[in-house]
């Protein structure tokens, strides 16, 4: 999976957990929380959906890597690759 594909995976999840938000112009290098209404429960949603949909575990200490789309891609792409995706 490429980093762009990883970003799309995260965007698909965000689209479901924040259905009222326009996510078409999210800047990949800016913190998600600075661009849209996301609280701590929403971040737990991202973690849960990565687990449910893709079998990816994100330990609590690594939540910081989910801050922006770019950091998500950097952190998650190797995990997808390790799973053969």
């Amino acid at each position: 999976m490429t980093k762009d594909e990883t970003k799309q995976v995260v965007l698909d999840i965000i689209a479901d957990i924040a259905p009222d938000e326009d996510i078409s112009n999210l800047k990949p290098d800016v913190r998600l929380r600075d661009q849209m209404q996301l609280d701590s429960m929403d971040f737990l949603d991202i973690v849960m959906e990565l687990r449910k949909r893709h079998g990816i575990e994100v330990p609590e200490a690594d939540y910081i890597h989910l801050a922006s789309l770019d950091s998500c891609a950097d952190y998650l792409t190797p995990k997808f690759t390790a799973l053969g995706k």
Partner: protein
Amino acid sequence: MSFKSPRIVITGVGLTAPNGNTLSEFRQNLLNGVGGIEKREIRYMGELLAGVCHYDALKYQTKKELRVGTRAGSISIYCAREAVADSKIDFAAFPKDRIGIYVGTTEHGNVETENEVYAISKFNYDTKYWSHYHNPRTVSNNPAGEVSLNLGITGPAYTVGAACAAGNLGLIHAAQMLRLGEVDLAICGGVSESIHTFGIFAGFKSQNALASHPDPLKASRPFDKARNGIVISEGGALYTLERLDDALARGAKIYGEIGGYCVNSDASDYVLPNPGRQAECVKKALANARLAPRDIHIVNTHATATPMGDIQECEAIRAVFGEGCPDTYINNTKSYIGHCMGAAGALELAGNLPSFDDLVVHPTINVDDLDPQCALPGLVLNHPKKVGKVDAILNNSFGMLGINSTLIVKRFLP
């Protein structure tokens, strides 16, 4: 010590029922004999009958709020917002810490718990897939708490758990809090999301108390010989209640005045009703309202269309209104909308409130063959009845574990 209890009045109504999403729509359907029962797929059980509400949930909530919250919370928000709008109170300027939210519920948490168990069943029951929203969704105060979040109300917001008597209890508790001066405006009544839990259906089915009929609209038939059980429904009715002086000061429309009430307990069985205690509850409510049985012009029955339950309630009503009450008329709303559980008492009261204005008593429908044991004098069957006087409505609502409630609402007279 002398204490003059403040008079409490109803100044706003918000509701959603299986046959209407505003009081006027609901009332018109009750007068026109239009019910709202439909077939619905219930998890593990297949197609059953249920009363489903079709209000516009996005009118007052975002998609995200709907995703995070519960159905009971959503129904409560819709009803609360509609009631506040109907009251025409200056809500923006009203001190939010002086508003109380008291929502009656039969149960809460079954829906979300069943959903989560079902969800983790797809992951071999691994609890790491259990939602982090489970606890805020299932705490007992959830429906009231969602209203406080949605409206920014910072006063007390909690539910009143009282089985199927809960709708009345929400109103009664609110009146008490207003009289105590704890709040200046109460948003109160009852809600139910119970059609979203298979457990309620399965429980009544195991009890042989679930209605069945080829025609969904004929399935809920209190007092009819062919009645065969309860149709489970969702719904909600929340009111704004205020002290009379406050309502008059702002020129509020007044739907009626809380006349009196009683809540008591059978202390006799988990499930079976107790007609003696029900009659006692009605009599104590009358005494509380300083009214005689003949002063009541509409009695809304709780009757759910179970074979024994209807007879027992009729026994209780006969014991109080059997003689000397020529102007007392008796009806039932569940024949249209099924049993809205925690919302039942509050919704059924709403359906009768317009009778103060139009002097028409809506009927009990679906009575093709009246059970002689339910043949109460004054029973209004199948067609609305124009009457000479409606000055007091008595609203019965009973529930499991033997909780009984009677609420009397009087025509407002200055």
